[in-house]
């Protein structure tokens, strides 16, 4: 009896997990399907699900009209660069807050997070002017700095939570063993926090990859990443659903692949400490 109930339970939860998963995935699936339709099929009503004329001409057009590789490379540089720099700043910051907290640590953390609650458009004008005056418009350096600073609060918060789980004793043991603070971080703290650091990295890469507000407003071509590439397909000449979908599919493909291969790491990192 008990056994049967658990089987039912497993079936039910599996089915619901798939249903929920499918609901989440459906827009992406629809986009991928649309990218293989003709423009006509793309907005036919009723919508065509699988039985339409499959074509790859959209991809060909997209390749012709714009330089995918250039934008993809920019996305990689912006996401990777901003994440690495954020990590370099966040590890010492989170270390200090996790292991030598003061009265104001909590407040500092909250304040950092609160900056994420401000709509970015609120600082668009000053940032734009700064960029203009420092000749940073449409430059990778400038954008890396903005993306890095924008995500820094989240990176510090995440690392802080992971570091808090590490027993202080172990770091003190390293200190007694003659390790300087730098070596303590490199040889003890970071290896112990690998799952946490990995998921922080991943999440930050994804956030930076998808960031559209600043990239659209501060770049035009040289430093423009994939977000700008997609946006160029929603043009005033009319909507080209199929081409837009093809461009979008190309834009999310790299991150989808990274996500697929690192999903275990990602889930483990995100639920770290929640389940023991």
């Amino acid at each position, binding site marked *: 009896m008990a056994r049967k109930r658990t089987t039912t339970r497993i079936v039910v939860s599996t089915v619901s997990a798939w249903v929920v998963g499918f609901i989440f995935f459906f827009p992406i699936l629809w986009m991928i399907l649309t990218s293989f339709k003709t423009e006509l099929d793309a907005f036919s009503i009723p919508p065509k699900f699988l039985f339409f004329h499959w074509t790859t001409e959209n991809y060909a057009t997209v390749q012709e009209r714009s330089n995918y590789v250039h934008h993809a490379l920019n996305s990689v540089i912006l996401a990777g660069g901003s994440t690495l720099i954020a990590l370099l700043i966040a590890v010492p910051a989170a270390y200090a807050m996790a292991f030598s907290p003061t009265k104001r640590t909590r407040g500092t953390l909250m304040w950092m997070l609160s900056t994420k609650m401000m709509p970015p458009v609120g600082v668009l004008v000053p940032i734009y002017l700064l960029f203009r005056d420092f000749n940073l418009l449409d430059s990778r350096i400038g954008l890396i700095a903005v993306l890095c600073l924008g995500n820094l609060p989240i990176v510090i918060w995440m690392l802080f939570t992971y570091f808090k789980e590490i*027993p202080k*004793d*172990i770091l*003190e*043991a*390293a*200190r*007694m*063993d*003659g*390790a*300087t603070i730098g*070596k303590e971080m490199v*040889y*003890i703290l970071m*290896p*112990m926090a690998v799952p946490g650091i990995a998921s922080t990295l991943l999440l930050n890469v994804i956030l930076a990859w998808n960031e559209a507000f600043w990239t659209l407003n501060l770049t035009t071509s040289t430093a423009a990443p994939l977000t700008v590439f997609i946006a160029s397909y929603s043009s005033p000449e009319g909507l080209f659903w199929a081409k837009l979908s093809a461009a979008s599919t190309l834009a999310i493909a790299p991150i989808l692949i990274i996500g697929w291969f690192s999903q275990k790491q990602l889930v483990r990192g995100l639920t770290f400490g929640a389940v023991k």
Partner: protein
Amino acid sequence: MGSIQLQDVRKSFGNIDVIPGASLKIEDGEFVVFVGPSGCGKSTLLRLIAGLEDVTGGHILIDGVDVVDTPPAKRGLSMVFQSYALYPHMSVRGNIAFGLKMARMPKAEIDRKVNEAAGVLNLTSYLERKPRELSGGQRQRVAIGRAIVREPKAFLFDEPLSNLDAALRVNMRLEIARLQKELGTTAVYVTHDQVEAMTMADRIVVLHAGRIEQFGSPLELYERPANLFVAGFIGSPRMNFVEGPDAERLGARTIGVRPEHITVSRSGDGWKGMVSVAEHLGSDTFLYVEVPGIGTLTVRTPGELGLREGDTAVLTPDPARIHRFDANGQAIAS
């Protein structure tokens, strides 16, 4: 070499004075135990010596050099933690070698030293394992191995045995004491277990609310406790304290007699009372005797005595072994 001297060391957390002022001198090669009830500041004092906490005031001298501004990594001390604090991502070999690597010792020499330490501690066949694959006792030995390979000026131990079961604890106690004597390295050992303190120490520091109540050899503390606190803390079962006319007759506010310094008989002169509990341990018998006007006195007698619960017993303290204390709880020299 490794003498450690504390000069009026003070420590407060916020506005709580945890160590109001401690001075003592630990000689090179000595095994000193800090003992005291929970929360009295033993770990704090040890961590101050280690450099893991900053002093609020005073000086700490290692081999005559003031180290209060020296970071822990540069003090040349090793520490064994209660939780062992092994590096979980490193093998046993990596754990033991870490300190040597930090000191940039050549690889061949590191290997030689690690193997030697592993041999001494019976860890040779576990060198490639991760800490989580070891038993508690083995982890403890790794922690000790990590401390000894560095050939420090002194070992600091913070209740290293409290996570082990009773039998293993006795073994490790002997092993640590033997190792320390062989190496001749100064050791400071924190415990709240007075048996550990009495058996391992050359000298014991009794701490109470952050103050050093007495610093002396185990026998000194047993035979000449400086005050009521030390008298009550050292010795098991606890010393009996008697106030009132019996004490005043001897010119004291309180007198203390250890349970083993009381003779029991069925009749005669002395404190007359009724046995309320008798514990028979085989080798010894502990009697708890209700004496009217005084309270419960504990008596320890060798072997078996015919006394049962409810019997009347007469207790006679050994006059040479009575400790006298004044109104401030300080011992009165006899």
